[in-house]
């Protein structure tokens, strides 16, 4: 079988699997977030944290919940790393330095999972499983909660109440993420991923000498790493490591895990706003961008010519032979178009255009389909902007899902789209103005530029993947990327919840023949165009100096 055909078949299998789970999972999530009942273990948790899960919250209260919970999480994770040296089960690793501990805490709480450390050389079982893996669950659940709050903003009228943050957080974790993770972990173990608490093994190498192999609860962390679009690997090699991602099948399954919740959330959205078709329109937009990026990525990676490429059947540098170009391209597109950031190949080694695609994927705001929760709310913000411009063109004050997009709404949406470009561009520019940051680059010229641009793009958009090449464990990068991750995660959430509150207070506008039909393919096309143009125009100059200059030179 030719590698291209294999790639197409893998893609089809992936689409089929995602299609099969779309309805049941989407409907299940809608039920979870609409249900009145509390499960018994949930009640224990509410009692333990002293929260009343039945009280409705307006947006400031909801936001306070999000921020308070996240602040406590950052603090806890920071302290856990700082005292690692004195904890049992730490495999003898010492405590983490303050700047790296801050970076890692921010990273995992912000659902970014940028890692400036080597997992197998720095983090013991307690931090990995008791700290990082826990955040993999709850940071994802926070994202979903905020998305659901925005959906409720569209669905509800004349209230301003957005639900209860604690209930959404706990339910998302217990009823959605945990059950799928249990099944997923078993599948990964069946594929060959490891799951134990053993120590470090000295293993002999074929070429002489020895290497160290760590044990760990890898499969369980791997599954939530993908499912919660976190991306932080147990090992430094991330999903390229055979203990995390042993076979082509596990690779495809991990890609499926990355995409399954973000896509299915559009169904949840459709259900909750009372129009499945509106969910399909959003799904269509996400799927169109995802498929387009996948096709472009495969094309640029397969079609690259040169003697070395031709022998290897394409651009194989930095890719695992067990995944091939197709399995790597599928993975890299999925991981950068969601806020996952897990990698099974080195994005730095991709062709110029290929590397550019991974960056552009993140720069779109990670909305196709995006992170769990964050993808949906990011996409809905873009929909609000598209509706605003297009709505004017049909001669009415713009409205989306029966809610007017007025001054307040557009103000929040406009602030939202400002945050990440500001973080990415300013921090990248600052890195070039200052003397030392540039020392971290491995390459010079356009490729070196890409390394730093990629780092901040990844951090501010909460992706967490690395271009590889950049030495990010410096005070400058640990601090600035840490700040970029926190601001890139929580500032947008402020605007999303404020928007949700404003929408929920409105009375609905009835739909007429003069209303812009946002469930039609025309709108989907318009939304794709708006996303591409707004993100494209923002990053075009920067991309031109990195991947474009490189890609066009080839």
């Amino acid at each position: 079988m030719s590698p291209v055909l294999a790639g197409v078949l893998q893609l089809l299998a992936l689409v089929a699997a995602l299609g099969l789970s779309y309805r049941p999972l989407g409907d299940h999530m809608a039920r979870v977030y609409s249900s009145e009942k509390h499960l018994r273990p949930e009640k224990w948790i509410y009692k333990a944290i002293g929260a009343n899960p039945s009280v409705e919250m307006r947006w400031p209260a909801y936001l306070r919940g999000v921020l308070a919970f996240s602040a406590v999480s950052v603090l806890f994770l920071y302290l856990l790393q700082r005292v690692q040296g004195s904890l049992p089960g730490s495999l003898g690793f010492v405590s983490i330095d303050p700047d790296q501990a801050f970076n890692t805490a921010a990273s995992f709480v912000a659902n970014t999972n940028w890692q400036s450390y080597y997992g197998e050389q720095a983090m013991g079982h307690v931090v990995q499983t008791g700290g990082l893996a826990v955040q993999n669950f709850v940071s994802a659940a926070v994202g979903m909660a905020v998305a659901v709050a925005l959906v409720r903003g569209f669905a509800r009228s004349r209230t301003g109440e957005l639900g209860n943050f604690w209930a959404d957080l706990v339910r998302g974790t217990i009823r959605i993420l945990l059950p799928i993770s249990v099944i997923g972990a078993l599948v990964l173990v069946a594929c060959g991923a490891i799951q134990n608490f053993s120590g470090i093994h000295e293993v002999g190498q074929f070429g002489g000498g020895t290497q160290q192999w760590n044990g760990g609860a890898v499969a369980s962390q791997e599954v939530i790493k993908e499912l919660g679009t976190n991306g932080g690997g147990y090992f430094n090699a991330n999903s390229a490591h055979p203990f995390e991602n042993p076979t082509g099948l596990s690779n495809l399954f991990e890609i499926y895990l990355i995409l399954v919740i973000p896509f299915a959330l559009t169904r949840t959205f459709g259900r909750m706003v009372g129009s499945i078709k509106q969910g399909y329109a959003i799904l269509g937009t996400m799927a169109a961008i995802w498929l387009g990026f996948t096709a472009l990525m495969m094309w640029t990676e397969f079609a690259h010519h040169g003697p070395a490429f031709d022998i290897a059947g394409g651009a194989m540098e930095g890719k695992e032979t067990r995944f091939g170009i197709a399995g790597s391209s599928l993975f890299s597109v999925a991981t950068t178009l969601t806020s996952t950031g897990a990698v099974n190949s080195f994005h730095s080694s991709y062709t110029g255009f290929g590397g550019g695609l991974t960056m552009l994927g993140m720069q779109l705001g990670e909305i196709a389909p995006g992170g769990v929760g964050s993808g949906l709310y990011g996409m809905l913000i873009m929909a609000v902007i598209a509706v605003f411009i297009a709505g004017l063109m049909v001669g009415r004050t713009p409205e989306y899902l029966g809610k007017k997009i007025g001054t307040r709404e557009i103000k929040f949406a406009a602030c939202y789209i400002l945050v990440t470009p500001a973080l990415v561009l300013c921090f990248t520019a600052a890195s070039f103005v200052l003397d030392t940051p540039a020392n971290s680059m491995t390459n010079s010229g356009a490729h070196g530029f890409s390394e730093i641009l990629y780092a901040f793009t990844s951090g501010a958009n909460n992706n967490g993947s690395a271009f590889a090449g950049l030495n990010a464990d410096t005070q400058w990068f640990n601090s600035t990327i840490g700040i970029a991750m926190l601001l890139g995660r929580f500032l947008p959430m402020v605007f999303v919840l404020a928007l949700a509150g404003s929408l929920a207070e409105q009375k609905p506008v009835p739909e007429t023949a003069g209303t812009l039909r946002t469930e039609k393919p025309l709108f989907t096309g318009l939304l794709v165009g708006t996303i591409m143009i707004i993100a494209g125009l923002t990053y075009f100059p920067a991309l031109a100096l990195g991947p474009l200059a490189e890609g066009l030179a080839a």
Partner: protein
Amino acid sequence: MSTITPTRPPKTGEPTGRPAGTGRVGGGLFDPRQLLASFPDAIRKLAPRVMVKSPVMFVVLVGSVVTTVLAVRNPGDWFGWAITAWLWLTTVFANLAEAVAEGRGKAQADTLRKAKTDTVARRVTKTGEERVPGTELHVGDLVVCEAGDVIPGDGDVVEGVASVDESAITGESAPVIRESGGDRCAVTGGTKVLSDRIVVKITTKPGETFIDRMISLVEGAARQKTPNEIALNILLASLTIVFLLAVVTLKPFAIYAGADEQTSLIVLTALLVCLIPTTIGALLSAIGIAGMDRLVQRNVLAMSGRAVEAAGDVSTLLLDKTGTITLGNRQAAEFVPVRGTTAAELADAAQLSSLADETPEGRSIVVLAKEGYGLRERHQGELDGAEWIEFTAQTRMSGVDVGGRKIRKGAAGSVVAWVKERGGTVSEDARALTERISQAGGTPLLVALEDDRGARVLGVIHLKDVVKEGMRERFDELRRMGIRTVMITGDNPLTARAIAEEAGVDDFLAEATPEDKMALIKREQAGGKLVAMTGDGTNDAPALAQADVGVAMNTGTSAAKEAGNMVDLDSDPTKLIEIVEIGKQLLITRGALTTFSIANDVAKYFAIIPAMFAVAYPSLDKLNIMGLHSPESAILSAVVFNALIIIALVPLALKGVRYRPSGADAMLRRNLAVYGLGGLVAPFLGIKLIDMLLTLIPGIG
């Protein structure tokens, strides 16, 4: 004969103001000479205090100043001077657009000012009259106006009746009647009494009169940004910030890339101005002013821009039946004879008996007899010895006694009584016909004859409300636009239903009282709908105030005019439909130019990025897909295009984009194709063309 006396002179003849099917909201006027005439105003608007109101254009202004300073410091650099000149032109063009839009209003304001010449008022005092300047009147003063006097201020007639020339305000030369009491008591300052004497009670302070408000409105002095305009400004401001970030951070990137020299401050400023949405930023306020102006040209005064915007969103239209949907009067539609009588006999009798009926209904019977039944027109003088019985409101009959024959025509009750009085019988037939016509929503009039065979009923005249031509099509159009029409009438539900069906409105409110109207509006609004209505009476005022778009008729009372947020000087209720279309057109123009403006940026990147970086990274020269001549010519072409496109689009901004009533989908598809795709492609062609022209200039080529 009983018909409702219309409270305003009904507009007949002109069914809807424009033919259905082809009717579009036409553009305003645009004359290129206005550009020149408004130039001084445009220069005056360069004051930073004025410019800061538009964030996008303020950035351009700052950019112009920066490049000017740079050009002065390096006077030998032709490129710097060229960029500087075109950036200033960009700023001036934007101001020019606004100045032209305002200039059109100014001309109108001047005309109005002439009407507001200093008047001397004859104020009534306890002892008699005193002459005071019109500006010293107070609310509550009584003033006397006689033939030839200009009414000194807005007020209500409290005594007398007069014909008034309101052409100064409405442009309509036919005088109107103003009388005390009722719904025709309002007079406007600046209009002229032509006959008789009236006493007017002043209701508005000098300086705040209708004509004053009109002047400030058409001049744009009272213009405030509308909610949607503010929202759009926010979006444009945030895009400006994004591009500002993209350009500012580009400098360190360029230094790293080794393109420091190619990214001088002048070049970066040029890039910034090209990227920020200058096209829409420059034209935004002109679009708003022009929208108000299009209403003024249709003789509608909107008291706020908010109301114009709301008009575009209206989803329920309340339309009065009489004068809006139907012609003001009922008309004879058919002669229905009873058994034993021919239609010709009936027509003949109906015609004769109506010759002495000067009401519009009576005249319509004569017209029907002539046009529908081929009867020669006759006049009262033709018949010798005829005794004419004129129609009066008491007898409710008219007729003629001639040659031993007595013919009567009138309301069913009166004629039946007349026949019985004369010992005649009314056939069952006649009763059934009367019933049938009533059921169908018409008004039956009986025709009876007494001759040697005794008194008897000959037949029935079917009077009906005539729906104006083209209304059904207009309502269909409105339905396609997603607007529901509700007919308001004092008629009984039966009649109302029949007319509603004939006219094709979606719903009707029969036997409507002002309270019913109010309740209907509140009900619609509770469901999230925006309601528009017209009204003229004092009892309409609460509903006018409640409606999102309340159009008061100029003939109406001051209370109504005060309550509504628009005044129609022509007092044509049909205009509500046009107002809605103008509101939509305003929003569409904004959206279309925003889309165009943003789509333009793609081409500008392809011009400027290779110009800046092809030296550092030769591969980037492949982005120069337009094949522009040199980096300088490429950047200059983009800047020139960016400036010229503003001037090129001024006519569009002032006239508004073409608007055809249609569903949202069709409209979006068309506008996206024209302004989205057009905005993507046009600058590629434009920049290439300008670049080709530039290379012809010696020293550049």
